[in-house]
């Protein structure tokens, strides 16, 4: 066999093996979406827990492999029940996006617990299986390849039989198709939902174990990537479509594998997210559905609960602002100033997310992408083109607005859950582009020696200077945004949040107004990113990740979505609180996760109320 064909054959086997694991991960997401109409962001954490339980069982306890499989499935099923209970059932009757956000909170908490228990370092995971390799027509296949294929195909067959031939399987399908009607046939839908979560999570955990074995390593951050791959495979096959999702996983595995062979392995994730966006735009119901419209969603899926926002009197706002301005004079402690500078920058991003998510109703999990565009634009303009900081900063806001809006454009026809996933994917694409566009971004190494921020020739290098710089940007964006919200444009934005169908019936061009909202939002996030770049004087592809996006959204929710003063208050709380509890710094994300869960459950309107 010539070497080209051999490569193709090897990559096909490779892609199918990876694809099987994606399928195993994604099938759980499909089941949960089908039954509960929820995109379970904690699914990646279940996968992570499965990997670590397996690692502990094999490496520490030396359990036999079959026992390990059972232990992983059972413990992850238990985690699934927790997710169902805390993330979903307790939230019945709240806004539709609430369970999605609470699964984000749960995943923060779970991931951090794993990291606290086993450190952030990757652990080596030696396979206990005999290392036999077979040559089949010039292709090498190992024991693990066979095992992975056997487990996922076996699971797929068992799942098919379960859904098609068992009473509970019928109940599950009926619940997925029409929950109320299923109840009126006597189906206990809560029980069906529990079974679904347990089953889905057991499968997700097994996938995590198999991946750990396949790459001989487990590490805490594998959670997030796995979740994203699962969404991609699931979307490819159609949300809630179980057989479609299996094929979606295999297709995704093959695309990645061939892509990596043609280009390089750093492109692996880029393919997954490009596929995700292409499918969302081309066939939002998955590759097996010819329909190009999304199923109708009765609520536009915002997190807006009816509440009366707390209106701060202007005199108080002015006093607080004045106090913030003089802090460096009265409290010239560099540590405090640094913490507060971070709070102002987070506040800037929270303002940007509260505009698109709170005011316009487009849940964005991609703000970090806009920050990264702003940061790299400004850094490159000063570094390579020699522009002065002020000009570069302004240009960065503009570039972020234009590029960011163009990237989000394909997501405009989507709603609710789909917008959240699409923006998450867009953020990841920006990240992957930065990683791979070496000639422009310097790839993994990042950009160093970025000139510090300056104003009229005076460099802002002292903590006080940086503090005032960040505060000035925040105040500027706050004033612009509150002016916009009081204008007719602001009213239109709220109209398309509250009822996009009615807004359209009034002749409002939705896309134009969404584009306007996203461009203002991306500009603000771009400013935050650019300022951060000049403050650190060093950035790389890991400076702005999806975790930042999720944190920004959490902040905006904490303050009260759509509420500008709330967004800033939220960022002060989330930045200062972990610092006050100094010993809690290791638990930071656990804290964020719990804060998110508690808020959604007990005060969904946020600290200052939604606006």
């Amino acid at each position, binding site marked *: 066999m010539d070497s080209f064909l051999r490569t193709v054959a090897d990559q096909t086997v490779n892609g199918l093996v990876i694809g099987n694991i994606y399928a195993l991960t994604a099938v759980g997401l499909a089941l949960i979406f089908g039954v509960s109409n929820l995109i379970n962001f904690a699914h990646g954490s279940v996968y992570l827990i499965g990997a670590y339980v397996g690692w502990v069982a094999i490496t520490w306890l030396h359990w036999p492999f079959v026992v390990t499989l059972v232990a992983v499935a059972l413990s992850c099923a238990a985690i699934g029940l927790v997710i169902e209970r805390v993330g979903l059932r307790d939230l019945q009757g709240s806004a539709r996006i609430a369970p999605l956000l609470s699964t984000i909170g749960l995943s923060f908490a779970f991931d951090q617990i794993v990291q606290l228990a086993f450190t952030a370092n990757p652990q080596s995971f030696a396979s206990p299986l005999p290392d036999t390799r077979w040559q089949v027509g010039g292709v090498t296949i190992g024991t693990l390849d066979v095992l992975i294929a056997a487990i996922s195909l076996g699971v797929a067959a068992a799942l098919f039989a379960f859904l098609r031939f068992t009473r509970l399987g*019928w109940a599950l*399908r*009926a619940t997925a198709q029409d929950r109320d*009607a*299923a*109840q*009126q*046939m*006597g189906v206990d839908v809560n029980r069906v939902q529990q079974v679904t979560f347990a089953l889905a999570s057991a499968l997700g955990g097994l996938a995590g174990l198999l991946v750990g074995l396949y790459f001989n390593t487990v590490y805490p951050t594998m959670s997030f990537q796995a979740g994203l791959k699962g969404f991609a495979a699931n979307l490819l096959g159609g949300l809630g479509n179980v057989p479609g999702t299996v094929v979606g996983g295999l297709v995704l595995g093959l695309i990645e594998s061939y892509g990596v062979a043609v280009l390089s392995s750093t492109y692996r994730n880029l393919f997954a997210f490009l596929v995700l966006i292409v499918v969302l735009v081309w066939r939002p119901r998955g590759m097996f559905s010819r329909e190009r419209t999304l199923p109708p969603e009765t609520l536009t899926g915002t997190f807006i609960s009816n509440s009366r926002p707390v209106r701060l009197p202007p005199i108080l706002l002015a006093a607080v602002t004045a106090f913030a301005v003089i802090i460096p004079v009265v409290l010239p402690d560099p540590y405090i100033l640094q913490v507060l500078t971070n709070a102002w920058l987070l506040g800037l991003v929270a303002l940007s997310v509260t505009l698109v998510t709170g005011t316009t109703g487009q849940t964005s999990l991609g703000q970090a992408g806009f920050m990264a565009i702003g940061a790299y634009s400004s850094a490159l303009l000063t570094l390579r083109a020699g522009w002065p900081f002020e000009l570069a900063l302004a240009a960065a806001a503009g570039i972020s607005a234009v590029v960011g809006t163009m990237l989000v454009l394909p997501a405009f026809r989507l709603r609710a859950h789909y917008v959240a996933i699409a923006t998450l994917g867009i953020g990841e694409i920006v990240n992957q582009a930065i990683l791979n566009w070496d000639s422009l971004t310097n790839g993994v190494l990042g950009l160093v020696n970025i000139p510090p921020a300056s104003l009229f020739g005076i460099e802002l290098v002292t903590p006080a200077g940086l503090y005032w710089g960040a505060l000035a940007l925040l105040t500027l964006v706050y004033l612009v945004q509150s002016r916009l919200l009081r204008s007719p444009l602001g009213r239109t934005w709220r109209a398309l949040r509250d009822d996009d169908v009615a807004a359209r019936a009034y002749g409002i061009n939705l896309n134009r107004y969404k584009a306007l909202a996203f461009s203002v939002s991306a500009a603000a996030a771009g400013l935050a990113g650019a300022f951060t770049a000049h403050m650190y004087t060093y950035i790389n592809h890991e400076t702005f990740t999806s975790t930042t996006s999720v944190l920004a959204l959490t902040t905006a929710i904490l303050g009260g979505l759509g509420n500008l003063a709330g967004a800033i208050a939220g960022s002060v709380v989330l930045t200062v609180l972990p610092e006050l509890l100094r010993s809690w710094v290791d638990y930071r994300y656990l804290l964020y996760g719990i804060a998110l869960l508690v808020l959604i459950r007990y005060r969904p309107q946020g600290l200052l109320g939604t606006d």
Partner: protein
Amino acid sequence: MTQTIAGEPLLDIDAIDTYYGAMQVHFGLRLAVGVGEIVCLLGGNASGKSTTMKVILGLVRPRAGRVRFAGADITGWETPRVIARGLGSVPEARRIFPAMTVRENLLMGAYLRQDRAAVSEDLERILDLFPRLRERLSQRGGVLSGGEQQMLAIGRALMGRPRLICMDEPTMGLSPLYVDRVLELIQTINRQGVTIFMVEQNANLALQIAHRGYVLQNGRIVLEGAAAALLRSAEVQDAYLGGSAAPAA
């Protein structure tokens, strides 16, 4: 008050108050359905008809009052438990499982039954009653016409061998041909011993097949009596049949 039920009623709704948030829907609602009857509940939009159905099915919990069914107090029961007690439901807008076949839809109606042999017999019997469904047995429920879906919904309810079937607007959105067929069918089922409680907006048609009727207005029963009497009643004529014009036969 006309009380025409002999013996204990199969379904007895007593002094129900229902609220959606702060808005009160039912004000001391009372009605009863005797064994073997066809009883219809009439009323305009927002009179509380559909909510009455939801209260019986356990989908909405009343704040006060009692619902008794088949000798048990079912107030506040979960829906599956009410169904297990012998209640069948033909929901508003039919609510067929669109991706399940006609056969699977029918068998879902027998979800709570354990007697497999009898279920197969019932399936045959129901398919004899609905020859149209037999032709389409392996097609997906979602591709049936509105009238066929209504037949399927009724057949599905029958598969549970219920003592009482609650039907929410069974003629809504059907062609005139199917309206007649559905009404005939309801009478046939009733003659076979199934008690029927139906909510209808089409008072004229409903009263032609019902034994008794109740008229609901703003959450209160304002009129009740034998169907024939209601059909002649000036009030019902005014409210639902477009003035004093004689009902079309």
